[in-house]
């Protein structure tokens, strides 16, 4: 008896991280399972018919946007990263950070800002008319496929740029130098060495861009472009066709998975990971004369279009807003945003730490499976995750009600999950745990396992080791993870639109409703708040990441 108890205690202690981690992963995967389950169960002809009508347009628009934006951001991102890693030119130090700023502006805010700038009453056309130049209607129309592609490219390219910049800057110096000693430089070096070795970084950056485009609802809704996500939301909210939305969401799952696996198939036997004995930073060369001016101009154009121009327009609009009635709504939305993204970020970091630490001590397939399953949500468009969450939460509520009634409790059928923040935060955690997991995992990789193993050899359990050794060493990595998540959660739109309780708006959804009702000036102020908070978050992350790199 006694020995059994000791044994079971020991078993529990050794699985103190593993079992909760499994529980978390199951809860995170449930919405996806529910989605598949419901799609198999319910099969509505009307929904499929409707999808059939939109099918062609939807497929063409979605794939078109993915390809155009993917290629454009890849080209811009890798060229800029190479210019800034390998050369110095006027303003290069500023551009290294400034080129990240477009990420602070969610594409849907950029979309309505650019429409405002280029429309008939916008600043461009009015100025041209005042100079006596008449613009034919339609020439400057942003609300087209190419307009949407422009907006996505200009606001999403930093994802590619930042990944390639870090990769080229820290791991490739020897390979590039050895190409130079073999007589290859300039453009040939870029095309034959830099682009191929960047491939992995390029794919992960473009992967994020593609997922963001697939995830977007604001831009395509405002510009009236039928895409995959807009169809899901229209079916669900507009028509109330649950099974149609589920069927479509399932297709989305398929697309996302196909994209993830396609790259692995293309890679074949080649390897892109570079093992360097010493990681040396590439010596930068100076670009003189017209080359330097050209490089500087290229960066300036992207910073202008991706940040300065839209922010200037938003400030101008906010300046013109005289109605104080909007202040209350704005204040509420700001509070809600901070609350939701704060809670969500903390929950994500806690879950990520649980899963990552459990996987760290449970090597082998189970550990890998845990992390993979948790990352699943990040590949899914927000609308798909939202539909999955609804598919699990609403039956759960019904079942709970039935159980209570069965036991004789006299309760009204309350929406105690779907009418509260629980469902929204749950959806956000499912969708964005990937962001937190990546940052937390990077932290674990950075500190390595030796310290923790030394601590366990000295008799501390995994939990004691975590609090006494890992957590203090990981402090900065955990902050980075939380901030990254908070910024992403604040900008999130489609999932929040579908899952937020009634009479509850965040900054993102407030902007969406304002723009939908053509209250551009009100939207401007909310947008500016969001941009300011994002910029602060991003700059903090940037500073902390640099400290972390220097601390090595």
């Amino acid at each position, binding site marked *: 008896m006694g020995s059994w108890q000791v044994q079971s205690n020991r078993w529990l202690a050794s699985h103190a991280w593993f079992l909760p981690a499994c529980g978390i992963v199951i809860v995170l995967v449930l919405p996806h399972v529910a989605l598949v389950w419901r799609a198999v169960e319910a099969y509505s002809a009307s929904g499929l018919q409707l999808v059939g009508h939109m099918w062609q347009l939807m497929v063409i628009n979605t794939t078109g946007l993915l390809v155009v934006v993917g290629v454009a951001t890849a080209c811009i991102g890798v060229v800029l990263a190479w210019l800034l890693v390998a050369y110095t030119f006027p303003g290069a130090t500023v551009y290294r950070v400034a080129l990240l700023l477009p990420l602070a502006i969610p594409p849907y805010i950029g979309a309505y800002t650019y429409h405002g700038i280029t429309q008939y009453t916008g600043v461009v056309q009015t100025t041209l008319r005042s100079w006596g130049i008449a613009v034919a209607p339609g020439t400057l129309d942003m609300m087209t496929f190419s307009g949407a592609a422009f907006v996505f490219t200009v606001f999403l390219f930093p994802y590619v740029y930042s990944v390639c910049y870090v990769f080229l800057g820290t791991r490739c110096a020897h390979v590039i130098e050895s190409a130079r000693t*073999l*007589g290859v430089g300039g453009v040939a*070096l870029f095309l034959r*060495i830099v682009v*191929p070795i960047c491939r992995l970084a390029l794919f992960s950056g473009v992967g994020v861009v593609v997922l963001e485009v697939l995830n977007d609802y604001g831009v395509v809704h405002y510009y009236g472009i039928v895409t995959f996500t807009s169809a899901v939301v229209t079916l669900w909210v507009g028509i109330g066709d649950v099974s149609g939305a589920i069927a479509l969401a399932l297709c989305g799952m398929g697309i996302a998975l196909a994209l993830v696996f396609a790259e692995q198939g293309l890679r074949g036997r080649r390897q*892109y990971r570079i093992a360097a004995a010493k990681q040396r930073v590439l010596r930068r060369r100076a670009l003189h004369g017209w080359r330097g001016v050209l490089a500087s101009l290229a960066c300036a154009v992207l910073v202008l279009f991706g940040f300065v121009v839209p922010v200037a327009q938003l400030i101008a609009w906010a300046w013109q807003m005289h109605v104080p009635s909007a202040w209350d709504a704005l204040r509420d939305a700001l509070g809600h945003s901070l609350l939701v993204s704060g809670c969500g970020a903390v929950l994500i970091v806690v879950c990520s730490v649980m899963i990552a630490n459990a996987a760290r001590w449970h090597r082998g397939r189970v550990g890998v499976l845990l992390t993979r399953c948790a990352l699943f949500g990040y590949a899914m468009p927000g609308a798909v995750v939202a539909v999955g969450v609804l598919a699990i939460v609403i039956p759960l509520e019904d079942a709970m009600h039935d159980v209570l009634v069965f036991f004789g409790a006299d309760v009204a059928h309350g929406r105690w999950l779907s009418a509260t923040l629980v469902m929204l935060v749950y959806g956000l955690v499912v969708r964005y745990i990937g962001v937190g997991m990546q940052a937390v995992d990077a932290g674990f990789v950075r500190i390595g396992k030796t310290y923790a193993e030394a601590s366990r050899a000295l008799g501390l359990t995994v939990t004691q080791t975590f609090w006494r050794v890992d957590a203090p060493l990981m402090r900065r990595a955990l902050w980075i993870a939380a901030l990254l998540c908070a910024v992403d959660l604040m900008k999130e739109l489609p999932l929040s639109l579908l899952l937020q309780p009634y009479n509850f708006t965040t900054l993102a959804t407030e902007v969406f409703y304002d723009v939908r009702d053509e209250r551009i000036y009100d939207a401007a102020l909310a947008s500016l708040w969001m941009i300011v908070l994002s910029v602060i978050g991003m700059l903090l992350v940037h500073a902390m990441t640099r400290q972390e790199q220097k601390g090595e």
Partner: protein
Amino acid sequence: MDICVRDVRFRYACATQCAVSGVTFTVRAGEKVALVGASGCGKSTLLRLIAGLERPSYGVIAIGGHIVADARTFVPAERRGIGYVFQDYALFPHMTVAQNIVFGLRSWGKHQKQQRCDELLSLISLEAYARAYPHELSGGQQQRVALARALAPQPAALLLDEPFSNLDAALHEEIRAQLAHMLSRARVTTICVTHDESDTIGLADRVLHLSGCAIVEPVRAALHAVGRA
């Protein structure tokens, strides 16, 4: 071609001390020289300066009678025509062994490239691995490919940075003998950097000691002379 280094000094940006301060030596055409010194004394930096990967802050470097670096001129690495074998080999991970070897032969015809590649593969005895990727080879094999790649464009000189640091100690002797054999067949001016003087036996005609970042004192390695007599 001979390599002439005159009073070369170099300091890394943000470093307070010179990595190389006032080094002078000459390597005659076809000679094989070993640079020996404690780690951190600027041996590798000296090689990077000769290869054109860094620009000296003072002094003159001449290759084959042409000045490649002084106060006014600086010929960058891609136009110096010097072979460099990196400490970690730096083989291009996305190219096969054959593609790696012909990488530097840009203006050559297809047939010539193939011929040169075959020649070098037989020199390094890796004929069977032409289509392998670098990560599929052992450390010693990777080093031989790096050597072949550096030799392929028939460089004016060959620089080897710590050729034995990444290899298994058990293979050490064997690989050193192979390397010495291949270098003697290649007949090219060679500078080899190492921290262990015993590594230079059979590899170098002459050993130069680099100490305290300063002066290279030429030491007649009587040992080697005796060994070859």
